[in-house]
């Protein structure tokens, strides 16, 4: 089943270049989205062994609730972006779709695999296609961003490889479930843990590793910026969560809380002073991931629930904003905040809802997860709640800056927006409002994922018993 999904995606990657029809890529990505919907309905943990080998020896893909939730999010966002890009990208579109298919394979593989070296391979597929997509426009900004991202990205990927080598040398296995049953908390294991977490923090953009992101996003097409700030960071956070899960260390962790709080504040402050709209949204993404890392550091049920909920909401809101503002860039050709005033009612409503949701105004989805985050941090320390509220206020400030620059400026361009650009934005806006009005719908998706994360024994028995 999973093998066919991979085959379809890989085949689409090459067929787009050979046949030169972009629809193939869109159909393949939509197919992966619907098959993930089907997998999501299945209540049990599913184990797929490649090549007929039983779990500890061969490569396995394990689909527990956490995995499938992430894969659903990834393929959903990818398919929205695939439809949107059909109009947005004007030149060399076949190469763009090839890379988009490849990045989807990477994201899907990292989220679904149950083998740590297989995770590294898919992580590299994701990274290499990301570097190529950053350089896609081939202008100075794009080249500079791509080179910076490539250097820091491949260095931290190698940290992951050292961590994997150390774990293999210490335990003699690469399977997640097998590792989880053999790992202890001695110093050498902790060094490997540190290397692996450092490697994934680059994708998640936690503060000492955040510097590549604004530079990279400034050069990319806007929809790829959406992938970087929404699902690519989600995959980074998932990597950290999975490593902590293997080490059975889902508990209060002041290092994560500290770095999360710093990320949150610094990202919001840096976003305030930007003049380029893409850079501003990139820093905003850094800031939102700070909340997630902080609440994951609490290790409580409420903390992890709110963290995963915020990953979902951040992915929806950031994709909506990048695509909405991408329409502005498409129409005006400008990225500077002072030059992109425009007049278009549907776009105003969508981007306005996205910005209100980003800053956590009820009854939108951003409010739900932020409220949960405030409650979770109140349990640990009221000080952290205060920091989170300050960061939230800063978010409102830069959101208003974007809104006023786009829609309240004097110099206005009256422009007609192509429908194919507007429909994905409207779908995401509807989802944001829906989750805000019915928060239980989102919680129903996340609760099984949190239970899967907190129950290590269930995972191990599912892999070896099946």
């Amino acid at each position, binding site marked *: 089943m999973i093998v066919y999904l991979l085959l379809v995606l890989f085949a689409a990657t090459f067929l787009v270049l050979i046949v030169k029809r972009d629809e193939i890529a869109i159909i393949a990505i939509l197919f992966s989205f619907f098959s993930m919907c089907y997998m999501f309905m299945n209540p049990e943990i599913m184990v797929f062994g490649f090549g007929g080998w039983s779990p500890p020896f061969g490569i396995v893909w394990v689909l527990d609730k956490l995995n499938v939730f992430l894969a659903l999010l990834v393929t959903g966002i990818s398919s929205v972006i695939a439809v949107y890009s059909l109009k947005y990208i004007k030149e060399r579109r076949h190469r763009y779709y090839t890379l988009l298919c490849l990045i989807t394979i990477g994201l899907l593989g990292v989220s679904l695999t149950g083998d740590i*070296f297989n995770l590294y*391979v898919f992580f*590299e597929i994701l*990274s*290499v296609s990301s*570097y*190529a997509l950053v*350089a896609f426009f*081939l*202008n*100075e900004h794009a*080249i*500079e961003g*791509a*080179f910076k991202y*490539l*250097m820091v990205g*491949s*260095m931290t990927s*190698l940290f992951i*490889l*050292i961590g994997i*080598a150390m774990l*293999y*040398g210490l335990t003699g296995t*690469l399977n997640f479930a097998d590792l989880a049953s053999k790992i202890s908390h001695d110093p050498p294991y902790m060094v490997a843990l540190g290397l692996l977490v450092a490697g994934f923090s680059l994708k998640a953009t936690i503060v000492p590793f955040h510097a590549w992101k604004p530079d990279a996003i400034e050069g990319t097409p806007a929809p790829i910026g959406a992938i970087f700030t929404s699902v690519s960071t989600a995959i980074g956070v998932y990597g950290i969560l999975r490593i902590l899960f293997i080490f059975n260390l889902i508990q209060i962790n002041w290092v994560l809380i500290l770095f999360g709080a710093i990320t949150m504040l610094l990202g919001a402050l840096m976003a305030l002073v930007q003049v380029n709209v893409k850079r501003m949204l990139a820093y905003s993404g850094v800031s939102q991931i700070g909340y997630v890392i902080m609440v994951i550091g609490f290790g409580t049920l409420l903390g992890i629930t709110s963290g995963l909920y915020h990953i979902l909401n951040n992915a929806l809101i950031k994709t909506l904003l990048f695509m909405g503002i991408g329409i502005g860039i498409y129409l005006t050709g400008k990225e500077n905040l002072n030059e992109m005033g425009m007049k278009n009612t549907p776009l105003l409503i969508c981007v306005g809802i996205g910005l209100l949701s980003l800053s956590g105004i009820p009854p939108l989805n951003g409010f739900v997860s932020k409220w949960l985050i405030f409650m979770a941090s109140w349990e640990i320390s009221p000080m952290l709640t205060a920091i989170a509220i300050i960061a939230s206020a800063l978010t409102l400030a830069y959101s208003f800056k974007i809104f006023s620059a786009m829609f309240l400026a004097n110099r206005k361009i009256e422009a007609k927006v192509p429908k194919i650009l507007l429909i994905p934005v409207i779908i995401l806006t509807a989802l944001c409002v829906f989750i805000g009005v019915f928060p239980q719908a989102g919680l129903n998706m996340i609760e099984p994922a949190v239970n899967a994360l907190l129950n290590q024994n269930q995972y191990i028995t599912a892999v070896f018993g099946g």
Partner: protein
Amino acid sequence: MIEVYVGMVLIALTGMYCMVWKKNMIKKVIGLGIFTNSIHLLLIAIGFRTNGIPPILTQVNADYFAMQAVDPLPQALVLTSIVIQLSVTALALGIVTLAYRHLKTLDTERMNRLRG
């Protein structure tokens, strides 16, 4: 065995020094290659066994085989990793070529200064 690990750490530090401190883009890419190869050395060293035999089951004595054979898995991992690093290096050199075409320099400091 300890010499191999010490050597690996030294090579890795050399590679990281190249990647972080050198200003020339090509030298940074070379540093990346050095760092990668040090990790390949680490992986091979993990699978090494003194007086080991090739991991191909020709004798019937499975116990002797399990005692003496070299671990083949790290070598498979290294082969995979080499292929990945090949593609990363190719992409990096492609980007360096484009950077030279646009900026007429390979100096990363001057690249930053151009942006202002």
